[in-house]
């Protein structure tokens, strides 16, 4: 169980009630929350804003194709250890030869093994009460990673390699764990079984308007409305890569600097649409449609 009060979003982050409830549930049960959804639905932002809003420590572990559990928990730096212990011999030899200059090991001491343990985000998060641990984009990981992770997370205890130091945390103080995935790879069933699952729906027009409001508060209403029309129209076309929240926010950031009237005109003229369309094939398709049916596109609003 992590910090368990119900959190419903902050001034900068609009949290869908269903997501807020799932998050609350996960923290109450002391289980990781696995969030899936389209890119740009605010998966990663949830723990970041939660930690910020509540003043909690946040540890982030971005998963990559080479992620392994040692990086995540802790590993023993054999190279440094070997170097430092070799340095002692080297220094002794130098002394024999009458050389005064010595090599230093920093403040690490080969006698104390704990100096060579490199702690990963998990070990750090588990050593602090009520922290937040974000494991980002787990679907990028090699296949065995989620299962290793599962084992690590199901015990509230880590034993540091070589030094034998034990990091343990009580159920009340354990970190809130959030795992995000873009569904690029199917996660093992056993892994999903141990998580509370939440799938974020793509926000509808109304919610998107609120999200935009949170990010670009001063934006002209008319501009937002027109932009949203275009945006959702594009999403309905079934493009190869449908534009996401991030893209419309960027687009509007650019429009925000322009006078509203002109911006509306620009949006209607689909100017700067490159911010929304990400592949060549989609672009060609859009161009073809504008060419063929300019009127339909112009009459959107």
């Amino acid at each position, binding site marked *: 169980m992590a910090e368990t009060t119900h959190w419903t979003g902050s001034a900068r982050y609009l949290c869908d009630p269903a997501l807020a409830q799932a998050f609350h549930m996960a923290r109450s*049960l002391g289980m990781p929350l696995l969030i899936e959804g389209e890119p740009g639905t605010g998966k990663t932002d949830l723990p970041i804003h939660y930690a910020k809003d509540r003043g909690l420590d946040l540890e982030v572990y971005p998963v990559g194709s080479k992620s392994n559990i040692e990086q995540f928990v802790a590993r023993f730096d054999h*190279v440094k250890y070997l170097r430092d212990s070799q340095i002692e011999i080297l220094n002794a030899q130098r002394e024999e030869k009458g050389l005064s200059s010595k090599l230093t090991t920093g403040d690490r001491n080969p006698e104390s093994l704990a100096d060579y343990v490199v702690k990963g985000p998990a070990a750090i998060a588990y050593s602090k009460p009520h922290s937040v641990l974000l494991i980002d984009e787990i679907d990028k990981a*090699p296949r065995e990673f989620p299962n290793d992770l599962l084992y690590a997370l199901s015990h509230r205890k880590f034993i540091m390699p070589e030094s034998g130091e034990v990091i343990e945390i009580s159920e009340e103080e354990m970190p809130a764990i959030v795992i995000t995935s873009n569904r690029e790879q199917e996660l093992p069933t056993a892994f999903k079984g141990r998580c509370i699952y939440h799938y974020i729906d793509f926000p509808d027009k109304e919610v998107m308007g609120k999200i935009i409001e949170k990010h670009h508060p001063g934006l002209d209403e008319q501009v937002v409305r027109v932009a949203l029309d275009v945006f959702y129209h594009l999403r309905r076309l079934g493009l190869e890569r449908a534009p996401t929240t991030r893209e419309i926010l960027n687009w509007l950031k650019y429009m925000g600097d322009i006078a509203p009237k002109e911006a509306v005109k620009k949006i209607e003229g689909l100017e700067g649409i490159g911010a929304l369309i990400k592949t060549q094939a989609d672009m060609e398709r859009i161009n073809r449609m504008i060419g063929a049916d300019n009127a339909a596109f112009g009459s959107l609003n």
Partner: protein
Amino acid sequence: MLSSLPEKFRAHGLKADLRTLLLLRKAMQKGLIKTLGDIYNVLKGIIVKEPADIGPFTKAYYEYFLHVPIAPGQTLQDAILRSETFAQWKTQFLDEADRDFTDEELVNTFLDQVHLTSYDIKEVISGKEIWDKDNPDQVDSDPEDNDSEPTERVLDKMADYSDLSLEELLERMEKVRQQQKTQHGGGSHWIGTGGISPYGHGGAAKNGVRVGGQGGGKMARKVMGDKNYFPIDRDALLNDNNVDAALASIKGVIEESATEKLDVPQTIKSGLKRGGLFIPEMSSEKNEELKVIVLIDNGGYSMAPYVRSVQNLFRKMKTRFAHDLEVYYFHNTVYDRVFTDERRTKSISIEKLLMHNKSYRVFMIGDAAMAPYELNSLSIHNLKAIAHKFKKCVWLNPEPLRYWPHTYTIQVMKQLIPMFPLTPAGIERAVRAMNAKSTEG
């Protein structure tokens, strides 16, 4: 107590087991479950593991907890209107209501009540902090503030059951279930004033506090009509809708792992160079890169509907994981050449194809239906050569499985190259067969 839940939910293709019940119990102990809507939410978090589960889950929930069976293709509103549970609820509700309601309004109210969660209630009484107090009677007996009395009344009614142990709550639910089973619609006490879920109805409404769900009902309704929330038929032939499911199956072909390993020879070599100062050298080990050759039969009308889906599948595959993907075309069967373009104007010889590294995986896609004379000895010889060289070679056939025994050339082709149907499930089996080969040799 709820012991039949896993079985019933499993019947809908969901993963529910003993652990589901244990988690549910834990959630109760943590005070997460106070209403029927809470059960929906909590179970959803526990059972649903991908978007496609949401549909079946909602169906299972309505069937199990509310006795509202939803037939395939039926909308939620329709199912509710036809259900016994709703009829019972309606009688009670209309008894107390002071005006008439349309069906739509009734269903909406019903959904609001079903999906009312303790979070919603908390919102209604936010700031009162009463909800979290251990003993609701305390509030009852000692109303300090007269102004807020109406609200507290509501709460009083709401809180009626909140200190009933949840075990008891569920036990009661189960009992009602049993009764209903034996007495055939002897009355639903699930929701509404007479039932175990006192929230929302009566008291709340009378006092003018609107207790509406935060859209749980809306969501449930949406789910029923949306095919995104139902699993794709994994035995349907490959089409644009299930191409992603197929893609998920095909992902199994990569067994890539990236672990760091101590490179002993390199460590010794560089250690000797340093005069005996051995520093471990790590090397990252990358197991297998995915190399794929796709051979597509794009001749003739029989294959035309599938070519696009297949290309789509492998194109997506390429952008996501394939390091090396080559596509060739043939007509009906492979003779001494395969073609590099769709119109079959440029070609390479089979010898050249066979010069590829043997670690390539070969997917042959075609209906393998042709006149028997077309499958001549040259073709058979070359197919054998391909299957011999590339151990991981499969044939994916869009022809429905039941026609296979009646086509002579399919029978022959099956002997030469392992054949699987061109469906997401078939592709998965093909990939599994391929991987089994890789462990053998």
